[in-house]
């Protein structure tokens, strides 16, 4: 589909073709609403179901059946009649529901009567000394290489961090024949006790048995070091070794690939730039949008579904996508047929039952969120260290926006995606404030870079011309 042949306006525009986006599309398009699903990747599936329609990995047991379930989601969305626009960046969204699209070097605006933001999650930043060295990657990134290209790490490989995805990836790599030298598990021993009160909910959920089985499978073949409290990566120009501390002892391992993971956090940039209100979630330790029961945000006409609404996993994301879709149908075409909301909410509740346990158990330890050593890079784009951020906070910066002005932290192309949470927590700790009060970067379009030429070629109103040429 070419960008300039796209209609000017849709009933429903869905940003993101992952779990939530695909599920929402099936509902709205299925009800007869003109639906557009936009994704910047070259194919649907988002991150969890990355490349599910094109993966060269044929052995289904490597990636596991949960992954292949994504095929059905894509098929349902396509069959429902939704228009699927891939390889297209959404760089702007505003309160009037005008959406800026960019594809192949050309940009244009479209509008919709309702927008569902389903931009999902990103890996939580993991700022350790040396994390910017070539050879250090996120666990999710390596998983994407496996799914989309059948590529696996070679040489000495160490996985570090905490969270269910860590174990999932480890099991996938093990099944693919990769020798993992060690897993550095940063889950504090105390976390098990802390999570125990939530265990009842978790034990009843299908995740419990699965999770347990995965861990056993991995622990049988891979050296697991528990209770890791410090990690540093080192090397000249590229990763050569990783040093860790656990239980009072220290060890250095030679390493070619260090895969980091400490949970995922909502991808909030588009929603924040559109003006949707967010709040700090003290258990998930990140910013989440303020939503009503149908997923509607503080901006009329914009709903947020999936992990972008708060981390709850792929199945919950599907159900929340469906709920947002149902709400859109009720608002735009009340006579049309839509799935039963109550049944969806019941399934959602089952999928969310495990959250209390998982979030408490796998809450990333403070020293991996707020780097203790001053020379650790916090803002990768502008190469600003933790020490610089702390000093600016001591000088009087009470929030990330003043910090930007003082240090350029957050001014690079990633627009704070990799430094935002770290900065909020460093300022909070240094100034004795809560992260809610400290706040986050004030974001504005373009949320992804767009060329001056593309912007220059877009049409402009007479009022706009008058405001500039004087």
């Amino acid at each position: 589909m070419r960008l300039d042949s796209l209609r000017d306006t849709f009933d429903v525009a869905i940003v993101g073709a992952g779990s939530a986006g695909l599920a929402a599309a099936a509902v709205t398009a299925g009800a007869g609403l003109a639906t557009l699903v936009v994704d910047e990747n070259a194919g649907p599936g988002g991150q969890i179901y990355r490349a599910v329609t094109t993966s060269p990995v044929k052995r289904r047991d490597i990636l596991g059946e949960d992954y292949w379930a994504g095929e059905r989601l894509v098929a349902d969305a396509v069959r429902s009649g939704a228009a699927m626009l891939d390889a297209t960046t959404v760089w702007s969204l505003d309160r009037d529901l005008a959406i800026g699209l960019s594809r192949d070097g050309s940009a244009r605006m479209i509008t919709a009567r309702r927008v569902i933001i389903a931009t999902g999650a990103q890996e939580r930043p993991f700022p350790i000394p040396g994390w910017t060295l070539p050879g250090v990657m996120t666990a999710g990134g390596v998983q994407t290489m496996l799914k989309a290209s059948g590529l696996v790490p070679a040489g000495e490989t160490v996985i570090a961090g905490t969270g269910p995805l860590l174990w999932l990836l480890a099991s996938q790599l093990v099944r693919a024949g990769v020798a993992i030298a060690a897993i550095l598990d940063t889950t504090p021993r105390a976390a098990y006790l802390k999570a125990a009160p939530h265990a009842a909910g978790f034990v009843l959920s299908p995740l419990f048995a699965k999770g347990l089985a995965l861990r056993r499978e991995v622990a049988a073949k891979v050296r697991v070091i528990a209770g890791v409290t410090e990690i540093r990566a080192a090397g000249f120009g590229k990763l050569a070794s990783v040093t860790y501390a656990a239980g009072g002892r220290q060890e250095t391992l030679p390493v070619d690939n260090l895969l980091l993971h400490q949970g995922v956090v909502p991808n909030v940039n588009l929603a924040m730039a559109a003006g949707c209100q967010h709040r700090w979630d003290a258990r998930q330790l990140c910013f989440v949008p303020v939503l009503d029961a149908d997923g509607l945000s503080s901006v009329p006409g914009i709903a947020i579904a999936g992990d972008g609404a708060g981390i709850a996993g792929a199945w919950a994301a599907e159900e929340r996508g469906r709920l947002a879709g149902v709400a859109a149908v009720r608002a735009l075409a009340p006579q049309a047929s839509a799935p039963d909301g109550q049944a969806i909410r019941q399934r959602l509740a089952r999928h969310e039952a495990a959250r209390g346990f998982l979030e408490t158990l796998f809450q990333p330890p403070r020293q991996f969120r707020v780097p203790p050593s001053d020379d650790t890079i916090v803002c990768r784009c502008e190469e600003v260290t933790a020490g610089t951020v702390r000093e600016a906070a001591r000088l009087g910066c009470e929030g990330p926006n003043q910090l930007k002005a003082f240090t350029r932290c957050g001014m690079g192309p990633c627009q704070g995606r990799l430094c935002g949470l770290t900065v909020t927590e460093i300022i909070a700790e240094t100034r004795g404030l809560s992260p809610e009060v400290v706040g986050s970067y004030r974001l504005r379009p373009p949320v992804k870079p767009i060329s001056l030429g593309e912007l220059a070629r877009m049409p402009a109103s007479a009022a706009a011309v008058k405001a500039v040429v004087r």
Partner: protein
Amino acid sequence: MFRRLPEIVQRVVTITVDGQRVAAQEGDSVAAALLAAGLTPTRLTPVSGAPRAPYCMMGVCFECIVTIDGVANRQGCLVPVREAMQVTTIAGRRELAI
């Protein structure tokens, strides 16, 4: 360092990276192709010239930016390889050309 799983059916796509011919696999992103070929670092930062390579593989970190067919600062992890694609790695601040 990365290797391809043996079961993967080979569908070679040849691209050029900094003037050198590189065999990639159909369906690879440019970033994956560079990693598979061991061509790291994939850029030097504009701030200090520090060596970097793709980190997140999902369009969030911007470490994978390269010049593709003359267009600079494209996120390599979001662009699939195509036959005869010209990729240039970026050292420092990018050039501007008409």
